[in-house]
């Protein structure tokens, strides 16, 4: 495995792996599957491989179920300096990053790179920046910009029994209009992490670290995940709107406005053009569209549970 893994690691990462081999243990690879995208993460550091394995546990299981040919390659390489702790560099897919002072911070950065590379490889689907969970009645798409509280709401819903599809990306099948699960680890910023802890008995983070811009983040694994090959019909589109002091309530939204929301948060609508707009129109026409106004996280979840019959 190690030698074949080294052959598959492409470009500059291959050279970096070669240099690292003379300094540290030979690199070994971890394989992650996000839908049709198989990501190889090579590393000469056992700690890094252990963290990545823990972070992508669900996606790891999927990759081991069948023969995989990675389409995306990254390497995290530990460089040991005499008298100092190791530093970590990332390379792959034409990008380098680092040095990072800790394996945790390197993997935090890698997680963003993996998400981005996987999204690029899934461009044949219509992609919307949104949280996604499944209720017994169907899928719930929660569109919103970064910082809108999507991930925190998704995490709270998952700890309340909803099944997890993604906290970042709604992957909409162009033929069936159904959702494919994009099972990346849930990522919460400090504010969301605290809010979740205040309302739920959440487990400890699988990984905590600091992004390059200095923001602390915490990663959690969801209790229940949708099947990898499953397709979930979009039943609801809920746009979250935090209002201090507001009672949690759902306000019906015009479908045309909801279409605009989804279009605004689409990562690749221009690629699909009018056909993509038509797809999103058919999605909203087949869904119930609401704005979720709330302040308290537990009340928001209870409102959604009552509404969806979960």
């Amino acid at each position, binding site marked *: 495995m190690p030698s074949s893994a080294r052959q598959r690691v492409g470009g500059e990462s291959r050279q970096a792996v070669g240099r690292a081999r003379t300094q540290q243990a030979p690199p070994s690879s971890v394989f992650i599957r996000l839908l049709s995208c198989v990501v190889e993460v090579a590393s000469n550091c056992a700690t890094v491989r252990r963290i990545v394995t823990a972070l992508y546990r669900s996606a790891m299981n999927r990759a081991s179920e069948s023969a995989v040919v990675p389409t995306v390659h990254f390497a995290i390489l530990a460089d040991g300096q005499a008298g100092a702790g190791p530093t970590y560099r990332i390379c792959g897919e034409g990008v380098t990053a680092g040095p990072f002072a800790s394996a945790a911070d390197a993997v935090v950065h890698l997680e963003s790179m993996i998400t981005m590379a996987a999204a690029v490889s899934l461009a044949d689907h219509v992609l919307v920046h949104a949280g996604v969970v499944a209720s017994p009645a169907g899928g719930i798409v929660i569109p919103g910009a970064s910082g809108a509280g999507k991930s925190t709401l998704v995490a709270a819903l998952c700890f309340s029994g909803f099944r997890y599809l993604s906290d970042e990306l709604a992957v909409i099948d162009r033929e069936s209009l159904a959702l494919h699960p994009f099972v990346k680890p849930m990522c919460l910023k400090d504010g969301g992490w605290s809010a979740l802890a205040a309302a739920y008995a959440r487990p400890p983070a699988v990984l905590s670290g600091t992004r390059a811009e200095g923001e602390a983040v915490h990663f959690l694994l969801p209790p229940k995940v949708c099947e990898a090959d499953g397709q979930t019909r979009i039943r609801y589109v809920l746009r979250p709107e935090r209002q201090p002091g507001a009672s949690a309530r759902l306000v019906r939204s*015009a*479908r*045309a*406005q909801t*279409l*605009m929301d989804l*279009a*605004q948060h689409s990562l690749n*609508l*221009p690629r699909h*053009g*009018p056909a993509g*707009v*038509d797809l999103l*129109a058919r999605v*909203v*026409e087949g869904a119930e569209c609401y704005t979720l106004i709330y302040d308290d996280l537990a009340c928001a979840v209870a409102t959604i549970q009552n509404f969806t019959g979960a």
Partner: protein
Amino acid sequence: MTELKEESRSDLSLPRRAHHVTERIVDGELVLYDPRRRRVHALNATAAFIWQTCDGERDQASILATLTGRYPDSREAIEADVRETLALFISEGLLASA
């Protein structure tokens, strides 16, 4: 290049819907998609009506007359609506040149 020149010469004399803009009805509301600017627009009922009158054969006065024929008691408000909506269509690049 020709298409950019068309946009820059858009004016209110004989407003015409730009051919690159696609339309979709969603729940009775008109939604426009402009692939050049990568924007989606949802039009209210008045804006949708004004949009439909932008056929390159009617000037602003004619569009106004069509609307006031429908709503005779609201001429002043309609006049402002027509003027502002057409200006918005132009600023958003939704109209072609006359």
